[in-house]
């Protein structure tokens, strides 16, 4: 299972759930599993950055996930 944690501003997407465990072998499957669990979540989650096991990805679409991986959704970072 992959541990998924949502920030405060995405709790409206998850009905208030801050943390869930999901079966997924990669990030694409994770988004699909989350969409099935939280309909309408795909678009806002796909627009978010995500940290997978500590590494921040602006777009993690292609990233593989391991059992025990941790995924933190977060606001995309901009810069100057």
């Amino acid at each position, binding site marked *: 299972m992959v541990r998924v*944690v949502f*920030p*405060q*501003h995405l*709790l*409206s997407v998850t009905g*208030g759930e801050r943390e869930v465990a999901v079966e997924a072998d990669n990030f694409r499957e994770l988004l699909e599993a989350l969409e099935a669990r939280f309909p309408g979540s795909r678009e806002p989650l796909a*627009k978010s950055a995500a*940290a*997978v*096991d*500590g*590494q*921040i*990805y*602006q*777009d*993690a679409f292609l*990233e593989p996930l391991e059992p025990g991986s*941790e995924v*933190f*959704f*977060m*606001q995309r*970072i*901009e*810069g*100057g």
Partner: protein
Amino acid sequence: MAEAVDYKVIGTSPIRPDGVDKVTGRAQYGADLNLPNMIYGRVLRSPHAHARIKRIDTSRAEAMKGVYSVVSGKDFPEAEHGEIGGEGGGDISDLAKNIMARDKVLYHGHPVAAVAARSQRVAEEALAAIEVEYEVLTPVLDLDTAMASDAPLVDENCYTKNLPEKPDKPSNIAAVMQLGRGDVDQGFEQADVIVEGEYRIPAAHQGYIEPHACIANTNESGQSTVWCCTQGHFEFRAMTAKVLNMNVADLKFVASEIGGGFGGKTVVYLEPVAVLLSRKAHRPVKMMMTREEVFRATGPASGTHIKVKVGARKDGTITAATAWMAYEAGAFAGAPMGPGAMSVFAPYDLENFKVEAFDVLVNKPKVAAYRAPGAPQSMHAMECALDELARKLGMDPIDLRLKNAADEGTQAPYGPKFPAIGLKACLNAAKNHPNYTKPLPEGAGRGIAVGFWFNVGMQSSAEVHINENGTVTVVEGNPDIGGSRASMCLMAAETLGVPYEQVRAIIGDTESTGFSNVTGGSRTTFATGMAVVRACEDIIAQCRARAAATWGVDEDQVLWEDGQATPAPGVNADVKPLSLADIAANAAKTGGPLLGRASLNAQGAGASFSVNIADVQVDRETGKVDVLGFTAIQDAGRAIHKAYVEGQMQGGAAQGLGWALNEEYIYDANGVMQNAGFLDYRIPVASDLPMIDCEIVEVPNPSHPYGVRGVGETPIVAPLAATANAVRDAVGIRIHDLPLSPPRIVAAIDAAGS
């Protein structure tokens, strides 16, 4: 990643390939280009900070001799909501309305019309002939007023985002954000010492020396070429296309040299206006902002109001921390309160914390990114609070930070666990630096502070061409602001195994190279550098194949070592190694010209930490602060070009010192900026600053082939608090607000003495 051993050129400091043209005046900046039949565009700007536009009559201006075209809000397509994408874009509708007001003006200097005429003088006369009737509204000019429940509304359709449910009435609070962990009440109960502070910082401009400038040339089929100074011509093309509802294929953007950006040139202001004026005039239109326009109508960094509370045990362990932070967005939503909230406690391993952040509309220009957007303000508050905490605890301020410092595996306040980071290495480097312990003159003060920035990756493309004599041309799509061409050449030279002097880098326009996001977010050396390395690896693979074909062996029997193809050990081939020049000279026989390419969405940008040490002397009579010494220590991952990394650190320190000591937007009661020029808005000049000492710490980023972390933004984060803490040390009074200008310091000293 590559082994951290014996690089041949990486870490050296050769002369930049674009240097001679820049110091001899040959380099072409945004305003330097002139085209045949070119005319000049000028913008009419609002004299009010908040008003409804009742009528615009451009007929007199259009009838004037020498006026070729006039545009106002009605000439732009209906602005639809939607994301621009990429850096600094925000909402399309907001971007479009910022470029040209529609029904309301939202800040003093907001564009309401533009003209193109045969000369700038005629254009100015035409602007004076445009009649605009306004219904003046009450401006909202500060955070306290804007956040009050009965405040006048900047935007009647703004409903606070990120709340559990859409609120039932509009507000100037465009969005809120919360972060937290643990139980802060319980944490504060465990504390032996608690400090609280409330800090205000006014808006400050990026202060790039080159004002915005562009030329647009639109032909009769509607296709436009735009030459402009920009941090990212591909994203400028995308923004212009969306604002004007054009096909990106009908727009070609060419980036000029750029005289500074620092985040402020990641959004369009003039370019869509110039395209529209040119389309109507059937001539090239050149537009150049004055310095006054730059101040009045381009994005500064947010003004902020931040409250921080920190509790700790006697041994220095932080038990709880809270932050409340309001950021001015200007006239449209999009202040960097998110990064501010995520960075405020980022350097520390905290069990209990809570952050509330607010994105607040005011009748001032829309803010834009400025190096590490959001972080200097929030971390100023936290780092000042920690200075007070260290004083109360009787601890060395570096020891206090080391006691609580994040390290590999620490769960960052914004969620994930940190991979390898260099904070402790920077803190130890600061503690061991001779500048930290050298005696201060009598009455002088010393302060330290920590800085942090996330850094980003994003999309980049690169091509590598091997010329017929074996020299190398790198083509990439990121305007060179801080010496990136030299860094690209170094990475290409190292990867290919050829001398630096054999490599040249050019910035392609939007039709001659692949898409790249902006030069911003400290991403170019990291992400575009990664693309260049991959493109060079493509070349090496091709060279091995060409050598194999030449020798009649298999490709896996050919190695690439020291810039040449050699047979692998044990290969029974009586051949001489083939250099890049040898292979290029015979390219026609082995498959044609050598072209390597790579495009990627770079991931794994490594967070960067810094520690600054500031020494100041304060004249207690006049309040003038002299910076006696400043030391910048930063983790660069790996410094590709050592002198340019130091240049970024020194430049960020200089800008941060300006923000700390002098820079601020000063408004009158009507929302008119009173200091829109460099005489009254004082940025530091060389005579204000000492030599800024640099120490580069290298904790390699495992996600980059050479270990690069971005270095461009972190340097501006720590100077604000380091300077404020040094002034506190010198005068014995905590002055919470910036800038620490002479009047503020004198007032604080007088108040303390009364």
